[in-house]
């Protein structure tokens, strides 16, 4: 079963543990500037949205890469970069609509690799704003949250009549 990194911003508490564990796992240092995931915040209105590579089915980064350095890992299904081919042209960084590919402070192109199928950010996200789940679970979660709103509406209507 295909698994996806599913982001639910409504649950995010903005603690940035995902950024720090990402940096610690990949670069062996604490530094959110290295992190492949980032919580984008609108502090004064309390909106927190974790942004990370969506592992697109038809990745734009792969399409624009002139060196064919972008490929999909068969096991983890993550879109990865072959650093032996990458020349650092940054076209992937420019064209990704999500900021999923980043230019590291060390000059290297980086992106989420799903930690070989066991994402550290998910493991350490206490509010479950990040989940690593299969397609049917995602569908169910989306339907359940919509149904929840619908059932609340029904309750209101029923209590009126």
């Amino acid at each position, binding site marked *: 079963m295909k698994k996806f990194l599913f982001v639910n911003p*409504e*649950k*995010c*508490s*903005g*603690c*940035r*543990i995902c950024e*720090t*564990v990402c940096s*610690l*796992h990949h*670069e*062996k*240092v*604490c*530094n*959110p*500037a*290295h992190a492949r995931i980032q919580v984008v915040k609108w*502090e*004064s*209105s*309390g909106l*927190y949205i974790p942004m990370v590579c969506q592992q697109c089915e038809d990745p734009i980064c792969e399409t624009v890469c002139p060196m064919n350095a972008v490929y999909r890992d068969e096991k983890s299904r993550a879109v990865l970069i072959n650093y032996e081919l990458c020349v650092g042209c940054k076209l992937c960084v420019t064209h990704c609509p999500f900021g999923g590919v980043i230019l590291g*402070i060390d000059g290297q192109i980086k992106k989420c690799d799903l930690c070989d199928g066991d994402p*550290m950010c998910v*493991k*350490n996200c*206490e*509010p479950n704003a990040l989940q690593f789940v299969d397609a049917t679970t995602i569908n169910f979660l989306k339907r359940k949250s919509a149904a929840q709103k619908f059932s609340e509406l029904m309750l209101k209507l029923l209590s009126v009549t």
Partner: protein
Amino acid sequence: MVWNRKIAQIDLTSNSINFKSISKSLRTQFLGGRGINMYYLYNLLPARIDPLGPDNVLLIGTGLLTGIPALGAGRCDIAAKSPLTGAVGDSNIGGFFAPELRFAGFDHLIITGKATNPCYIWINNGEIEIRDAIHLWGKDTFETQELIRADHNDEQIKSLVIGEAGENLVRYANVRTGMKNAAGRTGMGCVMGAKNLKAISARGTIDLEFTYPDQLLDYCSQMNNMITGSRWAKAQSKWGTLIIYSNTNTTGLIRTRNFQLNRLENGENLEPEVMDEYTIGMSGCYGCSVHCRHRYILKEGPYAPIFGEGPEYTSLGAFGTMIDCKKMETVLVANHLVNKYGIDTLEVGGIIAWIMELYEKNLLSEKLIDGLNLSWGNEEVVYELIKRISRREGYLGNLLADGFLPSISKIGKESEYYAMQIKGMSNLHSDERPTPSLALGIATSTRGADHLRSRPAIDLYGLPEDLLEEIYGAPMSSDYTSYKGKSRMVWWQELLYAVTDSIGTCKFQTVFCAVHAPKFEEFSKLIDLATGLKISKPLLMEIGERIITVERMFNNREGFTRKDDKLPERFFKEPTPLGFPIVKGKKIEEEKFTKLIDEYYHLHGWNNNGIPSDETLKKIGIENKLQKNV
């Protein structure tokens, strides 16, 4: 290495900036944060200086573990001589500033002198600049942070700022960051104001390196699981600290109408469930898996719309029970105002409750009343007083801005009895008459009446005595109204909190309200994995002892002795009128309490007057009462 990092010495009078590194011996003796701040506070200040003069020093210190993804390790400690108490000034702040300061290349800042004009300190990837802040002066704490971001066109800048209260030298002005975080106590914002320092801003992308990164990451996950596995953290994640109200107001451990009652009758509208109406989600500080803050929106009322974070249990007491106001909206508005002006919620709430009781008892002159209706529950006058105090407006506002002690001397001797303060600082709205351990903590705290220095909150749970003995290392009573063994409880917690404040993790994520939470043993392992420094549990406890003793020596030097470790008179005279049978009719028994203080001094190795003995100083390695050459 993570311990071998930089201190910046910034002199605002001469505009000079120097860098030096933190020695290994300073680290192993004081860790970081509050510990290293206390070392410098004692050593850099001569006795009896004016806290508002250029001689005072402002110390900003990140913890030794600040930046790790666990236990809310986003904290730093701010210290100076307190303009409120004249004793140790020290306050700890969460949010996101402290890690950003480390990523910008600095662990500690030593700020001296006084700027001629308003300024702010800009720290960016190893470089420090003192910049003009004329355009920021007069701006509130929210606007100031945004304006600094606009100055540098960088939304990721984090700042410590003061509001109008700090600019106007209100003696309990705080230092703020983000929407809610505050170094609330002892007037550190007043010290910034006195230095003409509006803000300290940081931005950085420098690596924080650790000795064993993979093992550290794994152990951080374990620590987060340990704390979130506790029932306390689960309740916090949903209700924040407001959950405490449900317990204390039922039991009768809460102050109402200043100190008249110990329960708020018909106080259902302050129950945490009421927050559901306003909450859009919870919010966490850096590295926190508990996320105890509400993100709330207030859509109606004269101050609406308000987006804010909080309120804490502290504000619920300050603007709820203490002034006998039973509306959550009042708490939310007042919480927003204190955050905007940058003033300590606990101090301003305590002082307003005191004034309201004096008004009720006809102890205020017409001049003092200033045309205000200071009746219990009048929320409008609370908003008005927060504003007047922050801006030093009117006779009353200007007077109360100086804090309890100057206000008592102006209002009259009779008013002193009603002032619920210790060493000039207001107490939390908890009623400690039925709980000797909690009472001992507020009486002896080095920064004045305070619940965050040594409170053994788990005493209230009635835990099995063998478990208490396992934690505290000696037998003690599990009855929270008992005096037996409680000095040891307070002493142990005091050491633990001193260490927690020095490694930069959150107090809620150690043995404070949660029983099975990380403590010395776990901190020791975290320090080892992060820094390679081997500091065992006994050594960590010794560091805690060293920090507390240095704070005590600072206070002794300023003239504080045993006579200042005293509870307000009302604790001994008025029994609690309400509450559970075990709580009702309780007051502090003087003789037993005196013995508790004796035992507490003895545990610290201080003499009967609270002065550290030579033998103690030798034992903890500060034989020469600390050297001047720092």
